[in-house]
């Protein structure tokens, strides 16, 4: 008990809270801007945390991390442009609710509440059962990762807006794009045609920004042609979600936070995967699916709590084993080590006070993020009143800046433009974009672990059925993939 009080005393000081607020604000900005990534923000701030020193530095990194994952939802909801890949799924229901249905305040408040819920929930899991979850995470080897990836890909049949067959085409194209470049499993350059750029692989960010931001600009140009500017009047009485919304989304919040914490705790998987799986699960378990894709609050809640619960989850292997779950946790791990905190199996025994400080720090970071988000909702909704004439060019420029500064790469900008053009026609031809995104995100995970599993088993496919975790995920994937075929049959069966 004393250690907890010790930790509280050391942590809660005026400077620390001020630093937390500043860094969370910076994090939200970085998250909202497409192209500015969490890792970039953390890497930028890494040296600054040394000047600040000690605990303040760690708090700042936590603030940026939580803020950035949340910030992506703001642009996702208001502009249909995910600020971070983890918020891509939020666009599916966030944008329709905010713009098509004219309820931006409601969408933002649901997303902020969901993000905070996810973050706090996963921190609780971290505090209560970190070692247990870490042991489950360690069971994941290549076959299990492959099965998880396949499970993610199988959702394409239920998540795809528009024609399912065309959605599958998009998904396979996405999977193929992920194979372009030097194959780390064999050393061979694939589909690179002697281009140095292609050998490094086609970056995901430019495609994401192009398919979402640029395509949406073109769609808006078409939709708003000839329309007169109307100022929309919103009265936002309460920034918190209504009781009705909250009770509707509560099961979704809990389910998605569990999924997100688990996925976060498995090293190598992140918010982008988690948000899609949670979205799909929310849709699967909902009795009335008709509103999904048109502004169902559960869609927003699932995606946002799914991606923010990664935070607590990713800290589980990081603190208990000293193994970072992704690039962002690797940076935080480095910062912790430089500040004298040694994560790993010895952490809980040697530095109990430090551990409590990290826990409390994470709780505070999530709460500050939620508070800031809620207080800024009224400001954010003003964006929807900016006339399209001014907003659209600004979005294009922001997309350009974001894409260029991501890798400081010229070809990336052209990839983004190409994706934007193709995305427009995909939209016209009723080919859903989520498929391509899911394919690119999961492509490498699926293929590298498939190949790696066969390397481990000397070419034998039995490795995929001998592991229980792997087998279960593959089964779930099959069930999910075939669902559009048998669901109508089941329905008619039950009716009669």
């Amino acid at each position, binding site marked *: 008990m004393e250690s907890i009080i010790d930790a509280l005393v050391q942590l809660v000081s005026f400077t620390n809270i001020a630093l937390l607020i500043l860094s969370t604000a910076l994090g939200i900005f970085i998250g909202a801007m497409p192209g500015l990534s969490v890792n970039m923000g953390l890497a930028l701030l890494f040296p600054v945390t*040394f000047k600040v020193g000690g605990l303040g530095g760690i708090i700042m990194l936590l603030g940026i991390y939580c803020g950035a994952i949340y910030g992506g939802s703001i642009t996702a909801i208001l502009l249909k442009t995910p600020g971070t890949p983890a918020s891509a799924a939020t666009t599916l229901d966030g944008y329709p609710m905010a713009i098509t249905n004219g309820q931006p305040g409601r969408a933002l408040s649901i997303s902020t509440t969901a993000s905070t819920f996810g973050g706090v929930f996963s921190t609780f899991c971290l505090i209560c059962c970190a070692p247990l979850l870490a042991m489950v995470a360690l069971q*994941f080897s290549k076959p299990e990762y492959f099965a998880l990836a396949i499970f993610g890909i199988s959702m394409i049949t239920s998540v795809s807006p528009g024609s399912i067959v065309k959605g599958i085409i998009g998904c396979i194209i996405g999977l193929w794009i992920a194979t372009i470049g030097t194959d780390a499993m064999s*050393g061979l350059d694939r589909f690179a045609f002697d281009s*140095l750029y292609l050998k490094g692989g086609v970056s995901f960010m430019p495609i994401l920004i192009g398919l979402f931001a640029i395509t949406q600009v073109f769609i808006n140009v078409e939709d708003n042609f000839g329309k007169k500017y109307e100022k929309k009047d919103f009265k936002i009485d309460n920034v918190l979600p209504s009781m009705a919304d909250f009770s509707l989304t509560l099961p979704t919040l809990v389910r998605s936070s569990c999924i997100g914490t688990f996925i976060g705790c498995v*090293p190598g998987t992140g918010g982008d995967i988690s948000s899609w799986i949670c979205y799909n699960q929310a849709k699967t378990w909902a009795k009335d699916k008709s509103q999904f894709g048109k502004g169902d609050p559960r869609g927003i809640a699932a995606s946002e709590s799914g991606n923010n619960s990664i935070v607590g989850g990713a800290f589980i292997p990081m603190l208990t084993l000293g193994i970072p779950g992704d690039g962002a946790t690797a940076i935080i791990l480095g910062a912790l080590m430089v500040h004298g905190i*040694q994560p790993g199996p010895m952490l809980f025994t040697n530095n109990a006070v430090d551990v409590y400080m990290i826990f409390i720090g994470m709780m505070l970071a999530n709460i500050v993020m939620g508070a800031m988000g809620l207080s800024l909702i009224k400001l954010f909704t003003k964006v929807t009143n900016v006339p399209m004439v001014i907003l659209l060019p600004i979005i294009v420029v922001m997309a350009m800046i974001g894409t260029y500064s991501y*890798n400081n790469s010229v070809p990336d900008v052209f990839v983004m433009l190409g994706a934007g053009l193709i995305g427009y026609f995909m939209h016209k031809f009723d080919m859903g974009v989520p498929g391509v995104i899911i394919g690119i995100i999961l492509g490498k995970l699926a293929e590298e672990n498939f190949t790696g599993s066969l*390397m481990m088993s000397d070419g034998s496919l039995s490795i995929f059925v001998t592991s229980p975790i792997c087998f279960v995920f593959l089964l779930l994937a099959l069930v999910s993939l075939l669902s559009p075929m048998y669901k109508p049959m089941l329905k008619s069966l039950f009716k009669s």
Partner: protein
Amino acid sequence: MRKYQALLAAVAVSMGLVGSTAALAADQYPSKDITVIIPKNPGGGTDTTARGIINLMQEDFGTVKFVPVNKPDGNGIVGMQEVAKAKPDGYTLGMVTVELAMFPHQGKTDLTYKDFESIIAPIAAPAALIVPADAPYNTLNEFVDYLKKNPGKVMMGNSGVGAIWHVATLAFEKQFGVKVKHIPYPKGTADIAAAMAGKHIDGTLADPSSFKTQVEAGNLKILAVMADSRTNLFPNVPTFKELGFDIAIRAWATLVAPKGTPKEVLDVLRNSAKKVSEKKEYVDYFLKQGIDPTKIIGEDANEMMKKDDLMFGEFLAEIAKQK
């Protein structure tokens, strides 16, 4: 009249002096921000090392800033090419990694160490032979014996086919005449650490910093390191050299300037780097992250890159012949 002439002469001379100092002052390096191109993604090992060292060197340089720019395109080759082709005036620097010594021999680029002048190599992580703590072998020789009795069964993780740790494992196989099963983990050594902690593979040859926590917790043990001398982090671990096998493979990262950068500029940078590398902050920054910092400066770093280039050149040519 003479006084007048003397006065004129004095004015002329002093103007000349003032003029030359003004010219010198204008040429004083550095007078504007210095760009450092990092050919890797932000947050990775090379990136945090680069940001760490330029941050420390920053203090010497006052108002002039070091601006890190990440250019991971084309496996980092695009970034390295940009540094090599940049104007050699000291305002564009870059980081290069041991891949520079390997890529030219793998047919991936024409760049070599000859295109750069080194400033400092702050890290040179040796390949460490890491196995589970409960493995039935405690020394390098015991491990080799086990391998000879079980060819092709022991799974060794690496960070990708053709990458440094895979090459190190191939060198190991060749040196001892054994065969292991290579299992690539393309995302890097953190994934290898996870796989070892979960007991999915039997060992690895990789840089020990990602495994430090597991080793200290007693879950893993290091049998030997491929370095010229023992590392400060694990002083009880013998080097391959001590055990009679002269093999040293390190993953280094060097801060470099393009070839042709004038000596005065290089000297300023190298002196600053030297000063920084002796500071306690520098050593602490790296040690705490599990990296044993090195102080290989200037010409020594050039030598190191040259040596590695020759070594990899020979070795990779042999591997290619075998195929």
